């Protein structure tokens, strides 16, 4: 069990040793082409491994089993990426999105009710987007009508990751349709085993089917499951904090470095161009790969700056959109360029590997997957509006 508060160098060695001992060799190979059930089973098992290590939720407060400082979280993220761990995808929403919301917007009772479950391996999903409320999330129409000490919920959510596996859902609903659109929203915790919930999987363009549509038909939710004030759910939903987001992208950036671009450089020793040249010996290929490698460091530099600011207590909320655009566009461009470099050989189906990041070495698939990052979490078009309006003071 790794503990916070020691020397950073020791923590680094500790995480490194833990990875060496626990990351199953060959997991990338074994999980390639796995179906949804196999994927879920593997992610459950892997989440369990992480829970035993102290690395499941290092950013949580000490009393909840975390307590690692931001510097320590950086070291952990670096070493997990370096150690090529599977992504903790099944529990990501619970650990990185729900828990921070609970820490900041829930009552003590709510925390005591929900956090132990997360710590013990309950799966959460997030019911935010709707078919007609995507980029314009605040126009959501799923309705919760107050009926004494409970809400009756009707409506539909979409793009809900892991809804089939989820025990709980953090749900945004409209409680007051008469208010301006950001005002009449509340945030509820829904037991996914409640009657009236139907889940339909959506297969993604790149293969996996971890997205879902979720239908709510007179679902009953006790009022005590509301997070934050009634009609005050919009602020609650902005829960994920800059620090967690920065660490999260940092881990992805380090994965992109170790297994993405450096993986490509290692593989390119064996790739041949049309005239039989070793790809890695070709000047144009060298320029391309070196440029990508340099740009991963650029993203990391921006993250370092954000983390320095977080440690100093500077507000970095403006940088969240910047890092999202920067990382996602680099990821996308890199996947495209390496796919193109592979030519027709890169068009052969190598089998989807859904429990890694965007660095599965199946570049064409990673390229399609990368659109998820251009689009999800607020399209880059919306992010650019945010940058223009909030950072640069441009009029709406």
């Amino acid at each position, binding site marked *: 069990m790794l503990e916070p508060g020691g020397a950073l160098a020791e923590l680094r060695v500790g995480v490194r040793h833990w990875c060496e001992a626990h990351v199953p060799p060959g997991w990338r190979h074994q999980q390639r082409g796995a179906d949804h059930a196999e994927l879920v089973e593997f992610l459950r098992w892997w989440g369990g491994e992480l829970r035993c290590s102290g690395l499941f939720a290092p950013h949580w407060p000490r009393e909840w089993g975390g307590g690692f400082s931001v510097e320590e979280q950086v070291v952990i993220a670096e070493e997990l990426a370096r150690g090529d761990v599977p992504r903790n995808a099944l529990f990501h929403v619970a650990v990185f999105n729900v828990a921070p919301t609970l820490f900041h917007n829930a009552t003590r009772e709510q925390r005591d009710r929900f956090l132990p479950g997360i710590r013990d391996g309950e799966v959460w999903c997030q019911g935010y987007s709707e078919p007609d409320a*995507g980029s314009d999330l605040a126009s959501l129409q799923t309705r919760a009508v107050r009926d004494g000490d409970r809400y009756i919920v009707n409506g539909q959510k979409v793009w809900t990751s892991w809804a089939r596996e989820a025990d709980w859902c953090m749900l945004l609903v409209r409680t007051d349709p008469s208010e301006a659109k950001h005002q009449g929203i509340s945030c509820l915790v829904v037991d996914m085993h409640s009657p009236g919930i139907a889940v339909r999987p959506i297969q993604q363009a790149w*293969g996996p089917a971890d997205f879902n549509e979720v239908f709510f038909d007179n679902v009953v939710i006790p009022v005590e499951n509301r997070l934050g004030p009634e009609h005050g759910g919009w602020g609650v939903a902005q829960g994920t904090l800059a620090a967690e987001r920065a660490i999260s992208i940092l881990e992805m950036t380090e994965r992109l470095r170790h297994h993405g671009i450096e993986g490509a450089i290692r593989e390119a020793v064996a790739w041949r161009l049309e005239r039989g040249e070793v790809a890695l010996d070709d000047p144009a290929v060298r320029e391309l790969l070196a440029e990508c490698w340099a740009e991963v460091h650029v993203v990391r530099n921006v993250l370092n700056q954000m983390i320095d600011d977080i440690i100093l207590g500077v507000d970095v909320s403006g940088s969240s959109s910047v890092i999202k655009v920067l990382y996602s566009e680099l990821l996308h461009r890199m996947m495209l360029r390496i796919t193109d470099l592979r030519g027709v050989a890169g068009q052969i189906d190598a089998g989807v590997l859904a429990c890694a990041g965007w660095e599965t070495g199946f570049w064409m698939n990673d390229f399609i997957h990368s659109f998820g990052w251009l689009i999800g979490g607020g399209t880059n078009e919306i992010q650019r509006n945010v940058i223009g309006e909030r950072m640069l003071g441009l009029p709406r």
Partner: protein
Amino acid sequence: MTLSSAEQHELRSTARALLGRASTSKRVREVVASEAGFDADLWKQMVELGWTSIHVPERLGGAGCGYADLAVVLHELGRAFTPSPFLATAVLATGALLAADHDEVAVPVLAELVAGGSLGTVAFASVGGSYEPAQRSVSWSPDGTAVQLNGAAGYVVDAAASDVLVVAARAVDGTTAVMLVDATSAGLRVERMQTIDLTQRLFNVSFDGVRVAAEQMLTEPGPRAEALLDRLLTLGVVATASDAAGIAEQALESTAQYARERIQFGRPIGSFQAVKHHCANMAVAVEASRATTKAAATDLDGEPAGWRTTAGITASYVGPACSEVCALAMRVHAGIGFTWEHDTHMWMKRAKLDEVLFGRPAWHRRRLADDMFPVLAAK
């Protein structure tokens, strides 16, 4: 005689109507899951409409029109992302036989292909997907009065469905030969290479001492055989570019429609300049791709001297431009475009395969440089 523009227009309308009925998204998804991988009924109709013989001279039973006309069909097949043996049979195999010097071997087979009696393809990429002569990975050697083939070719379109294969092979001394091989020949094995694009099927074809009669050669081994393969490569480039331009055109239309209809923030998203400009950039790329594939197909009906250049220009621009159109379609469709149910990924995957099937744009640029720079630098 190529078609007049009114006749081309009619051909296009016919094709669009047929494929609009017979190659819907739902139908394509059924067909790609089937064993054959294409719709035999639709193929029959295509043959009956004369699409397979548009570019075949009248003396050989064709319509005697040109590649510029054939490209109209290819464009429409791209629009509907139709799985069909058209590229392999009507463009590649037929193209090889039309370019053959030895009529006695070519003509009977050609008649079969044109009439829909059999399917064909061409195996001329190396196992690594290269079209460079020196990389060719099928070898030929004399074996009595016949020749023997050994080795393998990669990325062969629709090989499993083909009755005949045109095979490019290289002798120990480097001499290239192109010959017609029966798909049922002993020692010939066909193995699927599963592509991301579900609508086109590629195969590895291996030759383990396959015996081919010497008279099955389509032309004299050596420079004429190389010229024939060069021509085939250009055909492949122009055909996939036409297909990609069709995909891109359809992606543009669908995306513009979505942008007109999808409401966010109380307005159609197409009224937002970011979306509008994505669509405008798609329109520019589509216009340029259409004009370039049309010019390229027209070149194929002209003097052979310029074909390599045509291939280079077309491959350098059209594939990347049409893929970028599909990428913008994905951005504009956002969430819905990221689902398997929507067609956006089908467009994208087919366009990406089209882009590289007959050589990376980067490789074509190097070829173009090799061909043209000595000439241009001396001007």
